[in-house]
């Protein structure tokens, strides 16, 4: 354990560490653009310059620690050089923060105010380059804003292994460009480079000009896209910035989704499917309880369901593997005695052309909570027989023609579907963005999600619903 001196403070370091890692670990912030804890060291931005006594200035990200070295991260020399480097990096940067989606969370912007604060000293016109270069159908590249830190190329080479990005030419005509025969559009992790980009050069088409980032807040959540259960941040509008005249749906819709760093599950990455959850969550919702297609108040529908459950002799339940741990527990606790035959239903099948599995994150089962559901209930298709007189279907994705015709159906679903009207009792459920809970992923790691949006008046939380359905009064139908 070599001991080094950071600004005069003695700190312990491991031999394999660099000065930058030691500094960040000990709460001494050293600014950096190109370095990233999960990528290889490139050392091309020169932003993390520190002064070592007797050795002068060098970059901290590529400097191994040696015993007794005296590092100064804030000396006058370092400050002056940082300022000069920022001048150099912004030499041809267009400074169009006003129309840049990164503004507000931009590293360059933050460092400029923290370490430079001066307008450009250059008298020459800025070098112009390609704007809105079409990298894929998800990502646009603005070469003027690019500071050539190469985080994106290193990501495609080291993490996603698609090798889809490279760099062409040198000097101020150097550009990030896609490699011809390896399209970035086929990389299922491509959107991570938008988060990696320290400036606004890589722009997500989904989020392009959708909202300024300071109008948004991030709610921690879990991606239900597969059994990996990556932790994500759902960005939605802050209540104090709700629009009053513009489209009201802006207030309750997902603006974008970014990964929430979680070393136990997904590290700092998620796949593109996780970014597109709005496609799943923002389908047309079912918000009205119904009896055979006839809209009724919530209390009446719950009563009808209780009567059906009370009268059933051979009830069967199909349990959703999109239910949270709490909801599955609640079902087991309150309805487990009635529904002895409770089987786990697979709500979501892989879509056509979707990647099934790879060695980074994506898993073949496209449902978030199969692990917990398997713990509590039986797997596989239930055995219907002539006596089956009630089937409770929780969640979507089940073909009603498999249910014997004499059986009554209680259907719990969140989205508008033709089956809703065919069920004897239909009850609308809240979705993941409207309630709190936990999912257990296939490794057994439990992750928490929190609500972002209010649910509709007649929409029920499954956990409370199962409690309300418990102990149905037997004997009267």
């Amino acid at each position, binding site marked *: 354990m070599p001991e080094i001196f950071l600004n005069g403070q003695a700190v312990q370091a491991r031999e394999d560490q660099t000065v930058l890692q030691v500094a960040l670990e000990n709460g001494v912030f050293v600014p950096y653009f190109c370095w990233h804890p999960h990528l290889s060291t490139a050392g091309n931005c020169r932003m993390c310059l520190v002064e070592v006594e007797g050795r002068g200035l060098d970059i901290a990200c590529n400097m191994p620690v040696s015993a007794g070295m005296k590092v100064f991260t804030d000396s006058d020399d370092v400050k002056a050089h940082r300022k000069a480097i920022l001048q150099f990096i912004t030499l041809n940067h267009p400074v169009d923060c006003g*129309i840049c989606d990164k503004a507000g969370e931009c590293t360059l912007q933050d460092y400029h105010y923290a370490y430079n604060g001066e307008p450009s000293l250059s008298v*020459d*016109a800025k070098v*112009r*380059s390609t704007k809105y270069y079409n990298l894929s159908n998800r990502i646009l590249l603005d070469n003027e804003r690019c500071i050539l830190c190469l985080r994106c190329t290193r990501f495609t080479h080291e993490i996603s292994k698609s090798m889809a990005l490279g760099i062409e030419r040198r000097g101020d005509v*150097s550009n990030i460009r896609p490699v011809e025969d390896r399209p970035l559009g086929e990389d299922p992790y491509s959107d991570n480079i938008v988060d990696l980009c320290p400036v606004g050069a890589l722009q997500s088409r989904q989020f392009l*000009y959708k909202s*300024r980032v300071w*109008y948004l807040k991030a709610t921690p959540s879990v991606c239900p896209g597969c059994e990996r259960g990556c932790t994500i941040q759902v960005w939605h509008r802050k209540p104090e910035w709700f629009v009053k005249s*513009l489209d009201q749906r802006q207030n309750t819709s997902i603006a974008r989704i970014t990964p929430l760093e979680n070393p136990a599950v997904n590290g700092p990455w998620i796949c593109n499917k996780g970014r597109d959850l709005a496609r799943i969550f923002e389908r047309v919702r079912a918000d009205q309880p119904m009896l055979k297609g006839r809209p009724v108040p919530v209390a009446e529908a719950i009563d009808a369901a209780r009567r059906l459950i009370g009268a059933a002799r051979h009830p069967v339940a199909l349990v959703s593997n999109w239910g949270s741990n709490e909801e599955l527990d609640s079902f087991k606790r309150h309805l487990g005695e009635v529904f002895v035959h409770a089987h786990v239903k697979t709500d979501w099948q892989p879509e056509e052309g979707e990647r099934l599995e790879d060695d980074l994150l994506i898993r073949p089962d496209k449902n978030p909570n199969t692990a917990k559901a398997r713990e509590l209930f039986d797997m596989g298709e239930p055995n219907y027989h002539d006596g089956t007189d009630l089937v409770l279907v929780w969640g979507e994705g089940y073909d009603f023609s498999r249910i014997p015709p004499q059986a009554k159906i209680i259907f719990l679903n969140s989205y508008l579907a033709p089956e809703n009207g065919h069920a004897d009792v239909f009850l609308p459920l809240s979705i993941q963005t409207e309630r709190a809970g936990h999912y257990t992923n296939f490794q057994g790691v439990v992750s928490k999600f929190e609500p972002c949006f209010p649910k509709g008046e007649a929409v029920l939380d499954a956990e409370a619903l199962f409690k309300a359905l418990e102990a149905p009064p037997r004997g009267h139908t």
Partner: protein
Amino acid sequence: MSSRKPYVRKRYWNEPEMGWYERSYFFEIWRGIRITGGVFLANMWKWMTGRKGALTAYYPEEIRADYAAHNRGKHILTQRPDGRPQCVACNMCATVCPAQVIEIDAAFDPDDPEHPKYPSRFEIDYSRCVFCGLCVEACPEDAIRMVKETPDLPGFDRGRMWLKQDELLNWQPKQDVAKPYPAAGAGRTRGAP
């Protein structure tokens, strides 16, 4: 002045000191009616005989002449030479606005590389605007201004108090922006040999 009464602190700072004449109510009321009615009748007489000098201004046909040149009145959005808004939908005005009355929807225009971002909707709620002028100061493009006039501000329902982009652009069109386009001194293109 030996008969001066002892000082009694007033219950409130301008509590009136009234004698029997004021307390009797009738004379004071009559005096008030005489003053108000006198002004009213004099004004009405001037109006009936068509003479100037009545105190009432017939807003909005008549506008007070003593508005200062820098009075902060109704907003305008400046136009580029082709009539499109100078605004780039950066939301600086909406962010700085202390009453949060400005709402902007941004859109992408791939055909205009110099101005790829433009406002598809730009709306100001005049029922809550405090006319502080911070939006004008925050604007980096000289796209929003406040002119001294305040025409047609009153309305009969809240919905009507939202000023839409079309009216902001066109009720008093202005093109003399301080930041003209295209930007002077466009540099050489990176990637060119």
